[in-house]
């Protein structure tokens, strides 16, 4: 009994911290409609900056609390910089491009933090005056946790007052409900957006800074918190402050008590609750419907026809090169080529969901990773030969695609995309936390191809054959009635239903099919690397896939293929020449989004069509 009370209290403390971050995220989303991946980076920066301030300022109350506050304020200013330099310019870009841009910021911040603070975990001092504990039911409960429990409601109260009783707050609420109206009223939207970003970033920074006495500061804080903050915001309802508070409470307690029930996999529990909430209430506990998130670049999608001549020639040339040149390539080049083939299939599989399907997935790496783990687990525990492993990979991925997809495709827009992210995190946390089976962070080693396929050249040709075959199959399917039905429900759900198309079933099957294809790619990747790791399923890998599809262009299958080629090539080179590849990649992403908001293929197509128009 006493134990339960203490668990509940520690749940409240986590809920408070979670609420700080989530409230900022939800306010920013409410006003700008931007799904801000960089919010986790704000949180991490808050923690790092607080560490710097607190450890350099003189000890004592002023040094600590002043340091925490200064860190939060500085993060708020960093938020302003990000808004003014980047986001302000892309408010009209398609949602997913905005998301990519904020992910670019995540990458940039990661490397800058690494440069500034180094790779090792940093430990902060305890909070002055709150070092001790208080007896509760005969057990000691840390004072600092009690303090945190108080912070959440106080911040919530202040925010409610701010939004209720100030003119600025009224404007923010109005903008959350109806952006056009605020524009029409002649409100200075720029100032409004910038100030909202300041507030949101400040709250995230404060949340991070307040973690200093609780846990070590490290470079993984950003993505760890962002996944949970997304869950809170989505469960609460995008844009709803009270919803975020409620959801933070729910998730915080779930963590606390989940440890008692399923100590290893509390994360799974959290994401499952999210899935259930969203199925029962598709817009979260307190949310309202938002517009759909288009997988595409927005606007009317073009008719798909035969590929333009130059593209066909280019494709044939590339294929010939891919077939003929490798025997002259070295081992390194061969493994790069193998990877490129794999990522082309991976990107093409995501394209099926995003292009013809019109859905967005933030968690496609789950199926890539599940394929890889399916093969690796079969190799480790069943001593399965490579052939069997490669057959199990798509099966495992497809099975989970069916299960997860059943939830994801019944929602729409950002909610659906967030749910894909949530399921990917579930899969990730299982591989990460279920150490006995998956090896946890150390992964599974020794997943090698059979002797006949062991030479790099042979494995390359095997990969090429499978990936090319699967990609061509996808193309065939897109041109077949099934692919058309998928596009039909994207173009007009109303008309599709009116001619007997079961949109849910079509989307569901497409989702599972994409998972199967990603699974093939994942299985091949496992044997190419000889090992699998939780990072195969991580958020960064999901974003990689999004990048390939979006930068290449979502309209036709050639987009993701070009995107995968460009991205894999670029990343491979960056990793080779510099340690700061994240920084450079982040800058490249940001630049691409700023200058080519329609994607590279979109820009090329526009230019090509303009040229034809002149002729």
């Amino acid at each position, binding site marked *: 009994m006493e134990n339960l009370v203490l668990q509940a209290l520690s749940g409240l403390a986590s809920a408070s911290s979670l609420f700080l971050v989530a409230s900022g995220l939800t306010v920013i989303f409410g006003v700008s409609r931007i799904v801000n991946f960089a919010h986790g980076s704000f949180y991490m920066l808050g923690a790092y900056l607080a560490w710097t301030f607190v450890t350099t300022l003189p000890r004592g109350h002023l040094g600590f609390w002043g340091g925490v506050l200064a860190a939060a304020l500085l993060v708020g200013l960093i938020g302003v910089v990000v808004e003014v330099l980047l986001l302000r310019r892309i408010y009209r870009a398609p949602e997913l491009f905005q998301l990519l841009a904020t992910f670019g910021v995540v990458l940039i911040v990661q490397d800058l933090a690494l440069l500034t603070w180094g790779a090792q975990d940093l430990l902060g001092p305890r909070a002055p005056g709150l070092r001790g504990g208080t007896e509760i039911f005969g057990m000691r409960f840390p004072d600092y946790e009690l303090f945190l429990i108080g912070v959440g409601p106080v911040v919530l109260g202040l925010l409610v007052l701010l939004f209720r009783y100030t003119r600025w707050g009224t404007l923010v609420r109005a903008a959350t409900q109806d952006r056009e109206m605020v524009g029409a009223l002649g409100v200075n939207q720029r100032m409004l957006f910038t100030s909202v970003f300041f507030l949101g970033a400040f709250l995230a920074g404060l949340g991070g800074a307040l973690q200093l006495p609780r846990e070590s500061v490290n470079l993984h804080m950003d993505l760890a918190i962002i996944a949970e903050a997304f869950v809170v915001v989505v469960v609460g309802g995008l844009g709803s402050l009270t919803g975020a508070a409620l959801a933070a409470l729910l998730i915080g307690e779930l963590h606390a008590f989940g440890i008692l029930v399923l100590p290893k996999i509390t994360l799974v529990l959290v994401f499952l609750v999210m899935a259930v909430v969203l199925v029962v209430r598709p817009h979260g506990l307190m949310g309202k419907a938002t517009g759909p998130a288009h997988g595409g670049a927005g606007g*009317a*999608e*073009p*008719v*798909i026809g035969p590929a333009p001549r130059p593209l066909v020639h280019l494709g044939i040339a590339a294929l010939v090169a891919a077939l003929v040149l490798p025997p002259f390539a070295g081992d390194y080049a061969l493994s790069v080529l193998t990877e490129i083939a794999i990522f082309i299939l991976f990107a093409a599989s995501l394209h099926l969901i995003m292009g013809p399907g019109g859905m967005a997935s933030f968690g496609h790496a789950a199926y890539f990773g599940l394929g890889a783990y399916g093969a690796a687990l079969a190799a480790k525990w069943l001593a399965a030969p490579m052939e069997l492993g490669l057959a199990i990979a798509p099966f495992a991925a497809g099975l989970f695609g069916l299960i997860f997809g059943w939830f994801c495709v019944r929602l729409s827009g950002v909610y659906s995309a967030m749910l894909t992210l949530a399921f990917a995190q579930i899969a990730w946390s299982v591989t990460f936390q279920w150490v006995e089976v998956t090896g946890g962070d150390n992964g599974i080693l020794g997943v090698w191809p059979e002797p006949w396929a062991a030479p790099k050249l042979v494995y390359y040709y095997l990969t090429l054959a499978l990936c090319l075959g699967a990609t061509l199959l996808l193309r*065939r*399917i897109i*041109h*077949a*009635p*099934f*692919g*058309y*039905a998928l*596009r*039909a429900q*994207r*173009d*007009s759900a*109303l*008309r*599709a*239903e*009116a*001619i*007997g*198309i*079961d949109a849910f079933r*079509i989307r569901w099957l497409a989702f599972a099919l994409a998972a199967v294809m990603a699974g093939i790619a994942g299985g091949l990747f496992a044997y190419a690397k000889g090992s699998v790791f939780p990072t195969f399923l991580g958020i960064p890998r999901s974003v990689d896939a999004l990048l390939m599809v979006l930068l290449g262009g979502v309209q036709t299958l050639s987009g993701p293929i070009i995107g995968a080629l460009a991205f894999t090539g670029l990343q491979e080179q960056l990793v080779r020449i510099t340690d700061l590849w994240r920084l450079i990649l982040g800058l490249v992403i940001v630049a691409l989004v700023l200058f080519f908001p329609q994607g590279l293929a979109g820009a090329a197509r526009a230019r090509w069509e303009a040229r034809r128009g002149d002729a």
Partner: protein
Amino acid sequence: MATLEVDKLRKSFGGVQAVRDVSFAVAPGEMLALIGPNGAGKSTCFNMLNGQLRPDAGWVRLNGQDITGLAPRKVWRMGVGRTFQITATFGSMTVLENVQMALLSHRRRLGQLWTPVARADRAPAEALLARLDMADQAARPCGILAYGDLKRVELAIALANDPKLLLMDEPTAGMAPQERVGLMALTASIARERGIAVLFTEHDMDVVFGHADRILVLDRGALIAEGPPAEVRADPRVREVYLGAGFSGGHPGSRDPVRGSVARPKSVQGGH
């Protein structure tokens, strides 16, 4: 037996009673017009007939079978084709492909993964388009079509499942007067030839009085008149609805019940 029987259909949105106890029937091959001012509840009626809206009360029967509250796609499978007031077509497909989709779905072949659409059900789709004078538009993307042409595509799609009942919500809106009459004459001849029961709404009185076998008049959700064109035209209540209280007598000319062709400029909103 009537193809469609509607019994005491009722629907409210919040406080608004959009449709109140509407009952009627349509016979095979019959052209039945449902007219009424803006917001009378015509589209809401249609939406309840094809399952898009669940009625608060009442029944819908198709060939004697209860279809009340079935999902639109199930209603479609039972042989009901529909066009929308605001056209809904697949913008990323050509006219021909739009019709092919309906045909493929009708034959339950949308699950196919291998045969390209380009080679599936092409001939019947082309024949259908030719019948609607759309053969020359077949290869154009729906996304760039003129509104009048989109209405024709809708009709072609609606006819693709060999319907027993055709629901057409303002089928000629956005067309030139000549075109309207032509399309409705075509629709009437197809309906007679195939024994399709047609229920349509229309604001163009030339179209209504020229092509309807029978007319229903809806006002603020309730049926206020029903009968052959001549009878409805002479009905004082109908004249009142269209002209406002105070009007009586006058000579019901050919372009009536009131003054002329189109009752008023069409606003593009309300239910589909």
